[in-house]
Each structure stands twice: as structure tokens, then as C-alpha cells.
């Protein structure tokens, strides 16, 4: 049993903000670890064209299937392409699919959740049945079905993963709105004649952001894993563009020849990226949203 946290008053100066951030991170070191992994990933994705030692799609058959060495840190594939450079470039695909699909899911899900929770009635009933229908699918199966229907392209993978993420946001937001809707400050806002949209955006939304930040971080982890799985099944970006899942799929044909390095780079990259977001999400949940905290 931990002692109840005391309210802390921090002056709103820049120095005060920095020190309170430092205090927050010291109290929650896991956020620092997860945040660092995510920050490194973002940095790699942003600077891949500058830090990648080779062109990721340049074929050089004289360098085919070279094991990891100082010249090729993660070796080369059967076409002589540098695996390390492909892993660095692949982070752009994974992160952009992760961030864009999470934004799609966020926008749609939060809007539905806010409207359903605040309006109630028929809209709530219909919206929640649609959400139930989306939840009736195992998430990845739905993503596979949507991508297969729209065609194997990176944009379609983003849309598919975004749609799969909608129910999580919608249910979370709706639940929070229902618990906040009857509180005094909302009643007060309504009494003074604030329009519904203003109440939802100015008074309700800020109160659900903590839970949504946690949800978005964990959803990014899922999105990266789902994108990798879709690419692995050939439903993501198409060759020769580097993508972690697709590169692992491609490496399968050289597994019997023990060319393990072709899949090691992308495999570990997926793991680190998903792990980073999961770790950060769990840490944020413990720090920001004690109600959602899992025991143990």
C-alpha cells in the first residue's frame, strides 16, 4: 500500500517545469527507459537517409549473402543489399504506419466515443453495435481482411490497422465521458448555456486525455506489430522498398542455408520497436492513470 500522493504546487516558470519533469521521470524511471527507446526509433526513422551506410535498394550481386562484418554490420541479402541500411530505412515504414494508423484510430474512435457518451440514445446504441461488430473479429484477422480487400499497399495497411484500433478508443472515451458527464462542472457549463460541442471539447475531452495517451502508446506497439505481420503476409509495402516484415518473409528462402542474418536485423528491430512502445505505455499507465493500473 503506497501513501496517497500529496498535491504538489510547482511555479509555472521554465525552471519549475523542467524540475517537475525531472521529478516525474525520477519517480517513474520506466518512462525514461521506454521513452529513450522510442526517441531513438524516431531519430533513426527521421535520419535514415543520412545515417544509413548504403542505399537500401541498390543491388550489388558481388556482395551477395555476406555475413555480418565491419563493412556490413548486419550482413547482406542475396542481392547484395545491406541489411543494416534496410533495417534503418524500414523503421520509416513501421513508424509511419504506426503513427498514421494510430491517428486514424484516435480521430475516429475518440469522436465516436465522445459523441456516443455525450449524446446517448439511438446514436449511442447504433455506434456501440458497430463497435461490437468490429470487436467480433480477432484484430489481426480484420486487418488482414481489410488490407486484402483494399489491395496490398502501405496506405491500405494504415487504414486497416487504424480501423482495427477504433473500438479501443471509442469504448475507452465513451466510458470516461459517461463517468464525467454527470459531474458538477459539466452540469454548471450546461446551466450557463455552453453549446454541446464546446462542453465536449473544452470540458470533457481534457479529462480523458491521460487514459487516451496510454491507449495511443500501446496501440502504436500493436500497429507496428500488425504492420510487420501484414508485410510478412505480403499485404504491406511491396518490394523492393524495405519493410521489416516483408524482409523477414523474404529471408525465409535462405533459412535452410543458415543465412540467419537476413532476418535477425529486421526481427530484432520489430521486437525493440514494439517493446519500446509497450514498455512506455505500461509505464505511462502506472504513472498517469492509477485507475487502469494492473496489480502485480
Amino acid at each position, binding site marked *: 500500500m503506497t501513501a496517497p500522493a500529496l498535491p504538489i504546487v510547482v511555479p509555472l516558470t521554465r525552471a519549475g517545469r523542467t524540475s517537475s519533469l525531472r521529478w516525474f521521470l525520477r519517480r517513474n524511471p520506466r518512462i525514461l527507459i521506454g521513452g529513450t527507446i522510442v526517441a531513438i526509433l524516431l531519430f533513426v526513422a527521421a535520419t535514415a537517409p543520412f545515417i544509413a551506410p548504403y542505399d537500401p535498394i541498390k543491388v550489388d550481386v558481388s556482395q551477395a549473402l555476406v555475413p555480418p562484418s565491419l563493412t556490413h554490420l548486419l550482413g547482406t541479402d542475396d542481392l547484395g543489399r545491406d541489411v543494416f541500411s534496410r533495417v534503418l530505412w524500414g523503421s520509416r515504414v513501421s513508424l509511419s504506419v504506426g503513427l498514421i494508423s494510430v491517428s486514424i484510430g484516435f480521430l475516429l474512435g475518440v469522436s465516436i466515443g465522445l459523441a456516443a457518451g455525450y449524446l446517448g440514445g439511438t446514436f449511442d446504441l447504433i455506434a456501440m*453495435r*458497430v463497435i*461490437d*461488430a*468490429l470487436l*467480433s*473479429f*480477432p*484484430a*489481426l*484477422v*480484420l486487418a*488482414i*481482411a*481489410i488490407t*486484402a*480487400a*483494399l*489491395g496490398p499497399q502501405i496506405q491500405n495497411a494504415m487504414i486497416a490497422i487504424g480501423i482495427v484500433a477504433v473500438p479501443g478508443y471509442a469504448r475507452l472515451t465513451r466510458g470516461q465521458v459517461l463517468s464525467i458527464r454527470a459531474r458538477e462542472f459539466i452540469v454548471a457549463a450546461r446551466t450557463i448555456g455552453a453549446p454541446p460541442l464546446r462542453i465536449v471539447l473544452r470540458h470533457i475531452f481534457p479529462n480523458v486525455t491521460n487514459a487516451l495517451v496510454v491507449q495511443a502508446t500501446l496501440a502504436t*506497439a500493436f500497429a507496428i*506489430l500488425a504492420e*510487420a*505481420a501484414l508485410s*510478412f*503476409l*505480403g*499485404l504491406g509495402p511491396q518490394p523492393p522498398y524495405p519493410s521489416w*516484415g516483408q524482409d*523477414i*518473409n523474404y*529471408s*525465409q528462402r535462405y*533459412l*535452410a542455408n*543458415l543465412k*540467419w542474418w537476413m*532476418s535477425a536485423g*529486421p*526481427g530484432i528491430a*520489430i*521486437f525493440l520497436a*514494439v*517493446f519500446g512502445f*509497450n*514498455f512506455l505505455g505500461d509505464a505511462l499507465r502506472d504513472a498517469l492513470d492509477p485507475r487502469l493500473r*494492473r*496489480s*502485480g
Partner: protein
Amino acid sequence: MTQYILRRLLLMIPVALLVTIGIFVLVRLAPGDPVLTYAGEDRDPATIAHIREQLGLDQPLPVQYAAWLSRAVTGDLGRSIQTKQRVLEAITERLPVTIELGLTALAISVTIALIVGTLAAVKRNSVLDLLSTSFTLAGVSFPNFYLGLILILVFAYIVPGRIFPPGGFTPFTTDPLENLRRLVLPALTLAAASTAVNLRQMRSSLLEAFSQDYIRTARAKGLGERLVIVRHALKNALIPVVTIIGLQVGAIIEGAFITETIFFIPGIGRLAVQAIPAGDYPVVQGVVIFSAISFMLSTLVVDVLYAVLDPRISYESAKA
């Protein structure tokens, strides 16, 4: 209880209808004309028009949907465009394979989670606890298709004697031993992520149970520690675990799509994955609907089991 189950089944109908509409529309959005796939080499406009009419694809979408649904409820999901086999038959033919793989994975996952999760909770902060916590963190983040490849690499190619083959399937009725030998790697691959989730849930719900008054009472009246754990803590801690295991059914279905593809296992996941690039929409549609309905039913079973296991939960009183 019967009333509750009936009500839940009734509530499933509108959701299931929405699911079918969703899938129907999705599949019709797919690029490529299925009629051309169906016609094969024959590109004679008259033949194509005839096939289109025969498949009912010349009708408006709502009419096509109504016709398709009325056939689907009687189990007629159409025929595969590639093989001309009935979709339901193609699914039921391959279903035992997927079920065997899924149940084996579930058995591995639950056994490990129960044993390791209990030990980790009992010996909190021990080396075992630390290892299991690290495993749960890694397990949920590790891509199962890469894990599958590592297992193949190690056990089929690196370890001498090829302990386990890299893929393929032998029916249990043909050769039970070979069937199990070929099932080990795919089942482990499929089980990894759900083991991590179950392990985490097992550990945390046992820890919660340990902090309850009834455990203190059991200890205070002089019961042996083993009896306290098995008879009191474990029994209560299992309730949330059942829910989580039920939800793993979904993870196992989606995992089967990937695992069956990697290990060349002729289950329904591989059936769908092979049907996608071929534009075989009745098959994709059939498998996706089948997955959704199985997932919905397993969620229902979990809710009912929840009430059976925990007498404090009564769905009758929760009606209001």
C-alpha cells in the same frame, strides 16, 4: 442463467448481421474482377456475362447480399473460385488441423502460465519471478513469425539430427508420433504471446488473492501453505485468468494465419492467406466470418463460465 445465455445469443444476432454486411462489402471492394479469375483463359464476353449472371454478380449489392445471406445461414458459403470446392467443405476439411494446433498451443500456454505464474507469485521478487516478468514483457512484443523462423533455424537446421521438421503436417490418424513431432514448433510459436499474457495475469491475480483477508484467515487457522495456495488462493485467482484465456482464442485464431503459413500447415489460416492473392473472395469471406463467429461464441462461453466459477456474479440481478 439460461435466460442470460438466450439474451446474449439474441443480442449476437444484430452484431453478427453487421459483421456479415461489413465482410460482404469489404470483399466486394477488392481489386480485380472475380469473374475473370473464374473464367480463366476464356475471355469471351458472352461467357463472362454468363458467369457474371450465374454468380449473381450482375445484381445490385443489396440483392447480392440478401441472396448470399439466405444461402449462408443454411451453411452455403459459395464455392472457391480457384478449386470450385464448396467453401464450407474447404473450411471443415481444414478445421481439425487448426483446432489441433490451437488447442495444443492453448494447452502449452495455460500449463506454463499456471505453473510458472504460481511459482513467480509465491516466490515474489525471486530470480524465477524476475525471469518470468522479463519473459512476459518480451513475449508480448516478439513477432511470432520471427520466433517461428528462429525455431525452424535452430531445431530443423542447426541442431544435428533434425529433431523437429521445418514444416508440413501429418494427420494424427496416419502417424500419431509424427503428427506430434511436426506440431511442436508451430504450437510453441503460436503459444508464445498468449503464454506471456496468461502468465502475467496468473501472477498478478494470485498476488491480489494473497492480500485478501480469507488467505490470512486460512493461514491463521493453521492450514499448510500448500493448501492455502491450492485450495484458497489459486481457486479464486483463476477467475480473471479464465477471461484472459478466453480472449486468447482470438489471438490464437489470428496467430494461426501466420503460424500455418510459416510451417506449411493445411489449416484454415493458410487457406485464407493463399486465397487472398488469388482473389478467391468466397474463401476469404468464409474464413473471416468463421473466425468472427468462433471468436464471438468463445467470448460468450467465457462470460458464462465466469458466472459459473464465481457465485458472486449473477447476471440475473445485473439486468437492471
